[in-house]
């Protein structure tokens, strides 16, 4: 016979009270799990959207160039010293402290070429990276380049020079085939001829050089400024700019929801704890006679406390497991309803474990005062109710 036999025996006898206590814990814990799961799904969703949105960090060579453009209208400028990056060094971007937050690294080489007697912008890209970043790129005719000799033409360039898929063009003495015409994006690519990086570097006579790098970073829990600083440290001659507005506004909305979730969770947990406290107090009062007997037959105050706190631990564990199960089930049901196109991200092991620990801690904290009260019962007073 051990003290836990008494705790378990009492719990099995008071099934309705146990159910009531467990329900209190389940409501508290499942609320926390549901809200945090929704918050996690929101973050993942925004990360995904952010990826679709494109780059959120741009790295260009630092120069003394004074920009003379506004709203897409360029008045020209003077480049005193244009520097470019060595493509081979770009792997260092993935060696920064927050490298795990780096999604896509899309380098580009830019330069002017002569095409059919007119000046045009040639942009060399790594198509594998670029297509991940520019998910909105579509062709209005033809397809995307498959071989090194194929290229993509911006819609405005195609319109002005009357280019069509399959047509061969000469750039820097090399022959290329137009694979497709890019659908208008309203961006710079409408005015560009886009080829494979190696070919563009050869045509522009910039072998191994890169003019700018677009980077997509996941920003859950990573301050974008930190990332830009870490990249800038690796490339002292680069100007690393974060497109903060887009990221900040998204993250702010997540933070707002997180704060709301936290507030609701704290309130629900407080109510749950109060429920446990009141029920445990009632239980101790009901068990005065029993506690009197325990004390009379030689139980110390500590033994009485152990019995009650052990019950609290059992309730906490059961409530925790049930709360995690109910919370995840609710999140699975609710997330697709409140966030179209987004599903439940799956059971988070750490959140589950933390919730069970929280449930036990909550149950113990709420039972501590009743346990002290029970252990301090004067045995003669307790036995007077016999």
């Amino acid at each position, binding site marked *: 016979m051990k003290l836990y036999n*008494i705790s378990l*025996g009492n719990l099995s006898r008071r099934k309705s009270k146990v159910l009531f206590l467990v329900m209190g814990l389940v409501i508290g814990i499942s609320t926390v799990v549901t809200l945090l799961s929704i918050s996690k799904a929101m973050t993942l969703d925004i990360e995904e959207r952010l990826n679709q949105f494109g780059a959120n960090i741009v790295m260009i060579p630092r120069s003394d160039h004074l920009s003379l453009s506004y709203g897409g209208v360029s008045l020209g400028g003077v480049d005193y010293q244009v520097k470019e990056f060595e493509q081979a060094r770009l792997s260092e971007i993935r060696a920064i402290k927050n490298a795990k937050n780096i999604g896509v690294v899309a380098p580009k080489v830019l330069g002017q070429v002569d095409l059919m007697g007119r000046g045009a912008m040639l942009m060399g890209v790594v198509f594998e990276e670029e297509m991940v970043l520019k998910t909105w790129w579509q062709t209005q005719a033809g397809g995307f380049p498959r071989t090194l000799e194929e290229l993509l033409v911006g819609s405005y360039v195609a319109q002005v020079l009357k280019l069509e898929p399959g047509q061969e063009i000469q750039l820097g003495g090399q022959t290329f085939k137009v694979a497709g015409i890019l659908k208008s994006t309203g961006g710079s690519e409408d005015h560009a001829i886009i080829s494979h990086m190696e070919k563009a570097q050869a045509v522009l006579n910039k072998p191994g050089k890169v003019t700018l790098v677009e980077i997509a970073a996941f920003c859950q829990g990573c301050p974008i400024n930190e990332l830009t600083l870490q990249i800038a440290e690796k490339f002292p001659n680069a100007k690393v700019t974060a497109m903060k507005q887009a990221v900040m506004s998204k993250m702010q909305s997540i933070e707002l929801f997180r704060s709301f979730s936290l507030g609701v969770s704290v309130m629900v947990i407080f109510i749950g704890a109060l429920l446990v406290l009141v029920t445990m107090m009632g239980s101790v009062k009901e068990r005065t006679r029993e506690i009197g007997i325990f*004390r*009379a*037959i030689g139980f110390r105050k500590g033994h009485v406390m152990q019995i009650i706190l052990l019950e609290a631990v059992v309730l906490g564990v059961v409530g925790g497991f049930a709360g995690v199960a109910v919370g995840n089930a609710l999140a699975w049901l609710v997330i697709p309803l409140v966030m179209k196109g987004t599903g439940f991200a799956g059971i988070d092991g750490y959140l589950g474990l933390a919730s069970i620990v929280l449930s036990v801690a909550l149950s113990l904290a709420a039972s501590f005062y009743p346990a002290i009260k029970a252990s301090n019962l004067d*045995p003669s007073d307790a036995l007077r109710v*016999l």
Partner: protein
Amino acid sequence: MLIDTNHFIEIRNLSKQYETGSLAVQAIDHMDFHIDDQEFVTIMGQSGSGKSTLLSTLGALNRPSSGQVLVDSLDVYALSTEQRADFRSEYIGFIFQSFQLIPYLTVFENVKLPMSVTRIKNQEQDRMATEVIKRVGLTEKAFRLPDQLSGGEQERVAIARAIVNKPPIILADEPTGNLDSSTAHDIMALLQSLNADGHTIIVVTHNQQMSAYAKRTIHVSDGRCV
């Protein structure tokens, strides 16, 4: 604190006063008596005479207003609260009025209850509990719950629980109060046989017939020995 005494249990100038609202009730009034080792004593008195208060004070449950309770040369109320709990575990076996068994524990578990706060190993607990359950004649009903037993059987469980730790003193508060006459005599005979085994038995009763089983009777009236 050890005190020199010639008796196993000695009550010295014991008083207990209760405050009930503005009223002060003198439950025990300057009482002196002693009980020797292996004695069987009944404490008799009318309802409200202070006999139950005396029993709980003897059992280290109820601190007196003044005076001393010496057991085995030990000043019981000079001990701390937790030391008194250990003292009860080691020295005292209580048999309460109305049995007072734990309803959600089986007979076997109820009997083992006092051993749950000792260092006795589970296997040894089982052996000791089996032995005392056999002694009180409830082997067949060892795994029943208290509410599945008759009054007499519940009283036997209460006795088994009181003796399982082999305490030298057994205190019984009206152990036959809720039993029919035949069962009451069986219970008193059982207590008598426990006394023969070496337990000091102190029984509070108001039943004259039950006192016949004891070697000595202490009469109490208005909180005094008469």
